[in-house]
């Protein structure tokens, strides 16, 4: 078996590949559905309905996609500079903590000030937090995959302590959760009777901004260069250290913004289960988007759609709802291959 780069890359082929991939994923999961004693066809109809079939479904899909866009961007930027930040989950919570810390005071601030303030502060906190493993990498050559990964657990335990101890909301009748942020800190809901909130818009704007930043600014240029080859960038006289630090600040900041958006957009207060692994899924999203900020939007929407759809399908046909994660995983893997085959062709011998 041999792989060969394709000369021409057609958009049509890309679309086709995606459909084939999803089709394949469906085929695989159909087996599980059959096992559950339901009809696959019906299942997939329901899945579509659950993801996009109604105003509510759409709102949920978009709500789900929102944090994924942020964490996806975080991973995309870092990975471009070959800074393997697996700590999105931790930075997510750092952002959320910041939002609570600042969002529970300052009732006087109007929303128009409060919300940008929270995002900025959260992003800063997340960025600074990622600097720790970054410096460990650049100064002491400690593998950042590991440190960022481990720090996720530390942060989660820290949050755990916060909500059990100092930040515990006296009004919560003993349940471990922080006090809610003030109303002016809450992101306005964009569709009545849904959870779809301003965070999505902010996420999309950020994605566009990051895309533009990477493509059209000298800093973006440096990030891409350092990512491709540190030795060459150094030789060319680029500020390698500063660039890596900037990357860390941006990446950590974006992941933290996911936390802020989720906290101020959906929950309103901090709990230890604010994120069902958004940080990790972000990495997947980034790769689906081929590390392209605009691609990240698509990746996030895709993952959200599959998950929401499959989850609601599982309820509709009354089959164990773990199938939602299975479906997401399988489609993720098959889409990965599909994207690959749009740039490579497989030859025998």
């Amino acid at each position, binding site marked *: 078996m041999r792989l060969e780069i394709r000369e021409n890359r057609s958009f049509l082929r890309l679309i086709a590949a995606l459909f084939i991939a999803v089709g394949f994923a469906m085929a695989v999961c159909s087996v599980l559905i059959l096992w559950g004693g339901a009809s696959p066809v019906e299942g997939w109809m329901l899945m579509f309905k659950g993801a996009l079939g109604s105003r509510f479904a759409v709102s949920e899909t978009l709500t789900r996609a929102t944090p994924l866009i942020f964490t996806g961007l975080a991973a995309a930027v870092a990975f471009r500079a070959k800074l393997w930040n697996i700590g999105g989950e931790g930075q997510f919570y750092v952002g959320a903590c910041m939002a609570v810390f600042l969002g529970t005071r300052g009732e006087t601030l109007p929303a128009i000030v409060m919300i940008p303030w929270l995002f900025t502060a959260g992003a800063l906190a997340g960025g600074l937090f990622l600097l720790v493993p970054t410096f460990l990498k650049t100064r002491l050559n400690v593998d950042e995959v590991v440190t960022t990964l481990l720090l996720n657990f530390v942060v989660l335990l820290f949050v755990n302590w916060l909500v059990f101890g100092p930040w515990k909301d006296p009004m919560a009748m003993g349940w471990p959760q922080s006090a809610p942020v003030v109303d002016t800190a809450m992101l306005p809901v964009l569709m009545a009777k849904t959870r779809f909130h301003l965070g999505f818009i902010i996420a999309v704007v950020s994605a566009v901004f990051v895309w533009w930043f990477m493509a059209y600014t000298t800093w973006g240029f440096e990030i891409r260069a350092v990512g491709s080859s540190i030795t060459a960038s150094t030789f060319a006289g680029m500020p390698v250290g500063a660039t890596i630090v900037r990357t860390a600040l941006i990446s950590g900041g974006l992941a933290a913004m996911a936390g802020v958006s989720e906290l101020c957009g959906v929950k309103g207060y901090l709990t230890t289960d604010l994120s069902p692994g958004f940080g990790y899924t972000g990495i997947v999203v980034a790769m689906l988007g081929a590390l392209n900020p605009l691609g990240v939007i698509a990746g996030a929407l895709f993952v959200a759609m599959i998950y929401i759809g499959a989850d609601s399908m599982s309820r509709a046909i009354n089959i164990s*709802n773990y199938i939602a994660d299975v479906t997401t995983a399988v489609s993720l893997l098959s889409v990965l291959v599909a994207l690959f085959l749009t740039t490579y062709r497989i030859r025998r011998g």
Partner: protein
Amino acid sequence: SPKIKVAGIYTQPIQQKWDACLHKALQKASDQGKIDYVYSEKVSNTDYIRVLREYAEKGVDLVVGEAFGISRDVRKVARDYPGVAYLMGDTFGPENPNLSVFDNYIHEPCYLMGMLAGTMTQTNKIGMVGGYPIGEVNRLFNAFMAGAKSVNPGVEFKVSFIGSWYDPPKAKEFAYAQVESGVDILYAERAGVVDAAREKGILAFGNVNDMNKEENGEGVVVASALWHMDPAVNRAISLVKEGKFKAEDYRAWTMMAKGGAALSGFYEFEEKISAPIKSKIAETEKAIKAGDLIVEINDTEPKSTF
């Protein structure tokens, strides 16, 4: 009377005994043909609200689940679907018109077990292993400790939290650690502790489900504080059927007086426990049921005393 549609929404897998308890009650009701029962498990709090709405849209009549940590949003949903009855585990009070709340209050049987443990310990040292120090757990620990102290002021306690709801191997290790420090009785809030007791040849007390039978605690688990959701669930179901469901606190229905909580049988320990203690337990139980003895509900985090 016609069947009604009931949905259970659980934030943990249904092996997680807390949810298992709700699930079993509803399952029984459905087996008895009273209801059509569907459920979703391990629904993260992020997804919980969506699931709530979906079931509401699907036209279920009663939803049983947990609002812990998402109370606010759950209430929003309840308001949006006045036609649906909600019976939710929650630390907050009920909300008109359609949101009733419950919580687990098996502290009374825990108190009784405490009394037993207090008399049975030789080393005067008792160990307790729990998941997280949340109110629901703390109140059981504290009641158990109070019970033990009431019969044996000299008794001391070791308290550990494993920081997870389902990591039995870890719970087991924590239990071992406590045994090393000399405890000869374990209070098993988490799965895994009973196994440690069995292997170390000491006694244990069960929690929520009958561990003597269900977690092969034969010869190990003296008794368990049982939580029966059936009274609460059945009441809710019948009220919904009669169209009389209203917002109320089901606490009473999860306590001993109404059979929501109970002390399990002693099984093979029947004859090992001396008559005087048995009778003492029995009359305390009577007093509790009669309301003459109020076991304090103390949600503060318990601490080791040695």
